[in-house]
């Protein structure tokens, strides 16, 4: 990648173009869209989705998928709220417990996938059901009201931007560094590209896989804290269907569903596209059926543009490789 530094911008060209086009279209259609208020509103809406999409990016790069993130998020949120409200535990302990729930779900996913070599689609589908059931059980199917104890996470700190957004942004950069600058990151990409080759060179791919799924579970817990601080409540129905939105963000960002290729920064652009679209469509009052048709079309356009780009890119790489050989 570093061989072509000028291309790093163009790597995200498709998704950035779409983002710019969306902002332009909504600015023309709605008078108040192009305003600081809209952008701070979007910034404060996305931390949860962003954090979950980071975990999903790693999972997809390694060649897997995690359908359980929405349920695991609800489970962690309800665990956190129960600990705080029902069992009257101190805040730090409640946070820790919520983390443990996410990490346990994630590592269970990873262990079962690695040990029995079952497709992650099936294992995480099962986890989606189990975590949701456990959530209803724990919450007795009721929304647990937390109150303003943790709403400070969503209070604006600088220029209307919340602490939650700053935290999400820090996590994006940290994850980007882990993926691009560490040995672990290289293993993740390597396993996604050619797992057999990695195993032959003595790398414990099972361990890497478990760590990646554990990370996705842990990040779902972080998202749970962010979302419960926004609602000041833990909703056992939270995050139903959220996994699809998370996967869409990652894929729009250009991470390949076949594994082996992807970027956390690009995923963040994908999150921005999804949330700008949602915000814009509701600001102009589009009806629900059209909202869904338009969202589907944007996903399709983004992915096709991405395939187009990677097609061109792979041709270039082949030709330069030939030159060097």
């Amino acid at each position, binding site marked *: 990648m570093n061989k072509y530094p000028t291309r790093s911008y163009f790597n995200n060209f498709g998704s950035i173009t779409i983002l710019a086009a969306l902002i332009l279209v909504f600015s*023309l259609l709605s008078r108040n869209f192009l305003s600081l*208020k809209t952008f701070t509103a979007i910034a404060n809406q996305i931390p949860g989705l962003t954090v979950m999409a980071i975990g999903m990016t790693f999972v997809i790069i390694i060649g897997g998928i995690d359908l359980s993130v929405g349920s695991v998020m609800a489970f962690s949120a309800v665990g956190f709220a129960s600990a705080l409200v029902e069992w009257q535990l101190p805040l730090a302990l409640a946070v820790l417990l919520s983390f443990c729930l996410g990490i346990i779900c994630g590592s269970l996913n990873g262990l079962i996938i690695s040990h029995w070599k079952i497709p992650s689609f099936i294992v995480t589908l099962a986890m989606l059901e189990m975590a949701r059931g456990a959530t209803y059980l724990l919450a007795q199917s009721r*929304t647990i009201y937390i109150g303003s104890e943790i709403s400070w996470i969503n209070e604006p700190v600088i220029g209307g931007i919340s602490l939650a957004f700053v935290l999400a942004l820090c996590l994006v950069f940290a994850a980007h560094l882990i993926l691009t600058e560490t040995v672990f990151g290289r293993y993740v990409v390597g396993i996604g590209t050619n797992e057999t080759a990695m195993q032959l060179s003595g790398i414990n791919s099972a361990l890497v896989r478990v760590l990646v799924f554990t990370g996705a579970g842990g990040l779902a817990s972080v998202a749970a804290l962010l979302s419960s601080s926004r609602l000041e409540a833990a909703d056992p129905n939270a995050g139903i269907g959220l996994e699809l939105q998370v996967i869409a963000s990652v894929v729009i960002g250009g991470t390949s569903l076949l594994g082996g290729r992807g970027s956390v920064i690009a995923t963040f652009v994908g999150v921005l596209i999804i949330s700008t679209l949602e915000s814009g469509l509701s600001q102009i009052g589009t*009806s629900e059926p059209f909202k869904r048709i338009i969202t589907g*079309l944007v996903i399709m356009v983004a992915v096709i543009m991405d395939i*187009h780009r990677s097609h061109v890119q792979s041709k270039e790489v082949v030709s330069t490789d030939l030159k060097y050989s």
Partner: protein
Amino acid sequence: MKVTRLTITVILSAALFAVLLYSGLKPSFGPRNTTPHIALVMKSLANEFFLTMEHEARAHQKSSATEYRLTANGIRNETDVSGQVRIIENMIAQDVDALIVAPADSRALIPVCAQAIQQGIVVINIDNRFNQQTLAAKSLQIPFVGPGNRKGAKMVGSYLADHLEAGDGVAVLEGIPTAHNSQERKAGFIEAFREKALDILTIRSAEWDMEKANIVVAALINEYPDVKGIACANDSMALGAVAALKAAGKLNSVYVVGFDNISAVQEMLKNGQILATADQFGGQIAVNGIEYALEILKTGTHKADQETPVELITKQSIENNNE
């Protein structure tokens, strides 16, 4: 290959813009509009009840277009609470003057509404009432315009009870247990059944959903073969219950009642498959909320809660109406 992909991209992008334009949008050029901007935030528009609400609100706006502008939004499904929060945040960003909210959750929507009030937006609560303790804890006063859910459910429940004998077994199908209107309707049914000394066999949730109700009722009639009546907290669930009874060949021995009076149950009311339902005039609720908001915007005075009418609908009442 390259050309094909490019062509597809171009075609899809064109389709996208065409759809955007076709969905009824007008560019924002021209002089600034100073009429009040009202945002209606509903629950799932896949539910006919809210779709009617949206249609009547839009019709009301058309008939008084000089008085206010309307932006109407709904969420994907009844449980998408954070989606509803995001819509309200977007409406705050849109600088609307008033928000009419049918909350998907009686508590979790309160923080974002408090934020709207802080920005000087008039907030009116419709359909499903906010939790009064939580409002009081935040020292907020949000006027509620909506039906007496409990009263309506009691009317329907009593009508069902009149068709049964004391000691007969009945079951209640509630909506999403966290929703205030579901709790109220359940309470209304139970009150009516207790008054007639019916035996309440079980209370189950089918989350307002037809298919879930179908599964729940199929299991329920196996478990309690003596059940004589099933009271559903909305009509969609009553439809699911009727389908399950039909499949089990028990349609003639079990009475089903619903709530909402959606168009899909009209025929079933006439042929007796559903015994009764309640009409709370969903469209009128949103319109009342809008009129309330306009009045507050004009006069600046605080308004008290307003209960909208609920009516018992039976085969008899439909026939009387048609005469």
